[in-house]
């Protein structure tokens, strides 16, 4: 791995990574990936987030849906674990709570494939500090 030797290096690297993330997250290309983040902090894992993540990866592959499943930290909604955030290309992210395998199946079939929302949405109720 190349070392980052200066602030200029770091900024270059940042832009590169940001581009990569942006492509993944907000591309307007309809064929691009759906992105799914699974909340994998202690509270999520304790409620079965790991099984849900495995299930999502397997099933999306089986059903031929192009999606990237990644893990992330605590979204803060411990009452509704496991929680996942789904971003369809070009759309705002939606957080779903209480996701078990059954719910995950419903989310894949209805929301990911057809854009139809299902029960269990956790509304965003905070302000982010990003510009």
């Amino acid at each position, binding site marked *: 791995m190349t070392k980052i030797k200066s602030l200029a290096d770091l900024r270059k690297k*940042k832009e590169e*990574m940001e581009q990569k993330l942006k492509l993944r997250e907000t591309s307007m290309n309809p064929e691009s990936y759906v992105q799914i983040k699974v*909340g994998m902090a*202690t509270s999520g894992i304790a409620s079965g987030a790991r099984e849900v993540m495995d299930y999502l990866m397997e099933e999306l592959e089986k059903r031929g849906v192009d999606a990237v499943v990644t893990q992330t930290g605590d979204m803060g909604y411990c009452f509704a674990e496991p929680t996942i955030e789904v971003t369809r290309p070009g759309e705002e992210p939606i957080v779903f709570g209480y996701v078990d395998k059954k719910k995950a199946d419903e989310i894949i079939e209805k929301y990911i494939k057809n854009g*139809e*929302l299902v029960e269990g949405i956790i509304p965003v109720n*905070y302000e982010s500090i990003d510009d």
Partner: protein
Amino acid sequence: MAKQIKMHLLVCGGTGCRASESESLQAALDRELKANGLENEAKVVTTGCFGFCEKGPIVKVHPDNTFYVEVKPGDASEIIKEHVLKGRKVERLLYSDPQNKEHIPDSKHMGFYRKQIRIALRNCGFIDPENIDEYLARDGYQALGKVLSEMTPEQTIQEIKLSGLRGRGGGGFPTGLKWEITRKSVADQKYVVCNADEGDPGAFMDRSILEGDPHAVLEAMAICGYAIGATKGLIYIRAEYPLAIHRLKIAIDQARNYGLLGSSIFESGFDFDVELRYGAGAFVCGEETALIHSMEGHRGEPTFKPPFPSVEGYLGKPTNVNNVETFANVPIIINKGAKWFASIGTEKSKGTKVFALAGKINNVGLIEVPMGTTLRDVIFEIGGGIKDGKKFKAVQTGGPSGGCLTEKHLDTPIEYDTLIEAGSMMGSGGMIVMDEDDCMVSVAKFYLDFTVEESCGKCSPCRIGNKRLYEMLETITKGEGTMETLDKLRNLSHVIKDTSLCGLGQTAPNPVLSTLDNFREEFIEHVVDKKCRAGVCKSLMRYVVVPENCVGCTACARNCPVNCIKGERKQVHEIDQTACIKCGACYEKCKFNAIEIV
């Protein structure tokens, strides 16, 4: 093929909104969709709490983000016919700005989102914590690069001082000042220590930050190292946080591989590296001197201050100890500037605070609010109110060192100083909400039980005094206390506070004092009337048969585990109070309301 659903009506299904008829509203919306033949184009979906309960029921239209408030079932027809069918927003149902009374059509511009601002949690639940590249994409390590290439250590300290950042571990000591004192101490080696020994019951703020955004803490420690002149960082973390440890290890390796930790970072000549030290889970090791002794391999016992760790700490060298959340705020302060940070919060408490909401509250979880937010907003708006529609009784802040606040404190802004004035403290951020089913004497006893267990035993006021406090509380819950016990409780509490060596002992009686002050009548009921209104203290309650209701079905007698209920078939039964163990089995089995708790 069915038509694609184009529009969604999100109806809040939180407890608050359900109490104001959101369920029949949802049914009405469904009905109207069908009536207008729109069921294949729009869909009604229940969601979790929007955190805006006072204006409920809430309906949000997706994807145009229209936010309707106080929607009644009778409004369903208008929403469907106007908004869904014709695409015109129903003006009168839009949220109007409390200041200028203007309707706000788009939820993004509503002030209520400001109830939570995520600064310390900015990356938590957003990036993959095991991938440094995602952190870099979110301006990661820019702050470190900035201080190393553009700022002197003094300027760095000045920036932190100007930001007004205070210690998030509970004490609230100004962080910049702490850095400055450590910088001024002269030594050949200094240390930066991150206190990740989070031990309050119900608190998990630091764990979540380390699990969700470990690089933020590493970056901040390096910045601190540069500012105070230290090249070594140590994270003291409880061994019972395995996931946080796992992610920290990955993060440290990744940062080293990129040269963001190690020798001559950014070729500036500044070296810094971080190591982990594991704690065995002793509460007292959250106290900085005890923490340092534990890291050195000694017993985790506190020592007298001064000397402060900033002068003489780890291995006798100047050591700067900051808590996880404090560090998590540092990179963003450097990136966005002290002025920006100081613009959030109140005059004496700047920025935000993360709280772990727990107890009898609907939305248990992790929240981050600007300093100065009221307890009411946190509990009833963000937290969605009390579970099962019960009545709010108290909120415990500050963990075993804090106190219980009541209804009259609900409008107190959350700040370091106001909470102390109210008889509690900020603490590290555990917030436990209690309802009418909680007995405050038992709550005080619970915390004392914790501190008795966790007292290191070094000084006698804490070791012996707290044990005596616990015993007195026990006599009260058993119905053996007197008014004199209450006076003794108070006196001993003050002695322990005044004479204990470290923060643990000095604050351990706080839960007792605050409940004594705020719930005095409940204590008096326990000692004078021998009653526990919450029905928690078993010694104070009796199960009795209500003769008028008893039909003699024998269900109670058959289910009594100690056979203390006597009575013939079809005759009124009787409970032998001397043998009753108060398990409540008879109460649950009786179908005729013939068992009563008195």
